[in-house]
């Protein structure tokens, strides 16, 4: 039977934990709001740009630009986007599980796989795993700006042109709603044609019409494509940032609730124990008085 004092300590400790999780939840909620606004305002631009690029790549000869050309090589790279901090539920675990699955799959298919990682959590994870980390970007989520995306975008295009890898995929958490994050794997390089509704909408007409370019096609691709990768990288980072805060908020909300339940349970037990002790003392006194008669 635990002593009353140890129970009191236990209650106090859980209460403290609850205060912390509650505070973290509130902080995450505030940050989520900001992150959510950013991703919502960045999405239209990224989607439009993707549409334009996809449209364009459909109308041009794929061989005409190195970033569109499919290469026979067997080197696959996965860009893993996780958070810098923990305490956000299954957020990172989901990504890392999917990443490992992906890498195993591609290795079994006889491809060489490497990773580049964004976020401290995945860096720590992959340092203890057999895959080569080609590049790491820790701490980008502290103060996320377009500069980071620029950096990542330039690096991947540069490495791709150098032949460091022949295909590049990205795995990240998409922000679906506050309660839901979705793990997404997308191919970034070489550029895949869009097959979703955004190109289908223009219908067969768009595939027939030949494009006019100004200035010429090559110059246009030269400016459009790098831009596209930077913007996509930025979108992925923003998605992940918003999803992270949402996941943390949900996790901390759960933790606060669990702490509340625990407090209730222990308090009930504490009161029962206290009552039992009082009853016992009373019986002793009554017994003593009875004996004196």
């Amino acid at each position: 039977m635990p002593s009353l004092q140890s129970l009191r300590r236990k209650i106090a400790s859980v209460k403290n934990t609850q205060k912390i999780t509650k505070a973290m939840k509130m902080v995450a909620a505030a940050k989520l709001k900001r992150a959510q606004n950013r991703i919502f305002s960045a999405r239209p631009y990224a989607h439009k740009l993707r549409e334009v690029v996809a449209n364009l790549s459909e109308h041009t000869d794929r061989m005409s630009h190195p970033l569109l050309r499919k290469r026979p090589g067997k080197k696959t790279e996965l860009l893993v986007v996780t958070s810098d901090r923990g305490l956000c539920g299954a957020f990172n675990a989901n990504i890392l599980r999917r990443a490992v699955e992906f890498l195993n799959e591609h290795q079994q298919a006889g491809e060489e796989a490497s990773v580049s990682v964004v976020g401290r959590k995945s860096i720590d994870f992959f340092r203890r795993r057999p895959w080569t980390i080609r590049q790491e970007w820790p701490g980008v989520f502290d103060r996320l700006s377009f500069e980071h995306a620029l950096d990542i975008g330039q690096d991947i295009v540069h490495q791709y042109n150098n032949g460091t890898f022949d295909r590049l995929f990205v795995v990240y958490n998409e922000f679906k709603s506050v309660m839901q994050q979705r793990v997404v794997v997308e191919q970034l390089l070489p550029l895949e044609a869009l097959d979703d509704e955004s190109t289908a909408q223009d219908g067969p007409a768009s595939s027939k019409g030949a494009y006019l370019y100004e200035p010429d096609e090559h110059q246009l691709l030269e400016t459009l494509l790098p831009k596209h990768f930077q913007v996509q990288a930025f979108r992925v980072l923003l998605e992940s940032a918003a999803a992270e805060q949402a996941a943390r908020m949900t996790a901390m909300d759960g933790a606060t609730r669990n702490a509340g339940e625990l407090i209730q349970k222990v308090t009930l037990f504490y009161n029962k124990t206290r009552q039992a002790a009082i009853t016992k003392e009373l019986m002793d006194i009554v017994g003593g008085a009875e004996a004196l008669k």
Partner: protein
Amino acid sequence: MATTSKSEQPGKLLLEVVTPDKLLLSEHVDQVSAPGTDGDFGVLPGHCYFLTTLRIGELHYRSGETEQYMSVLWGFADVTPHKVTILAEVAEKAEDIDVERAQAAVAQAERHLERGGLPSDVEEAKVSLEKARLRRKVAERLQKQGRA
């Protein structure tokens, strides 16, 4: 995607202006003219497929009797028979521009340019002067319209 869900209207162009910050405009219009790198171009419904880069300039569109102006700094324009997509680095509607501030920016840019300095500084000053003049021009258009 919510941004592409607008239905087509016959005889109209869907004009969409997007910047990295937001979807600035999504409207059915009759005519658009935009500043391409190799010269301004006008678009009417049924235009052929056309893709171009944009320079610093004025975007102008007409819907019925109303004319609207907008400043656009760099970016891309994607034109299809029913739709014009402007992907601008920076874009502002005329009514969002503060004329006095635009005026002050022009003056400041002019001073910077006069002062001279390194070639890169001069280049920068030229660009900011161009930007400032454009914003002033676009803003003044609206004022004139208001008076007329």
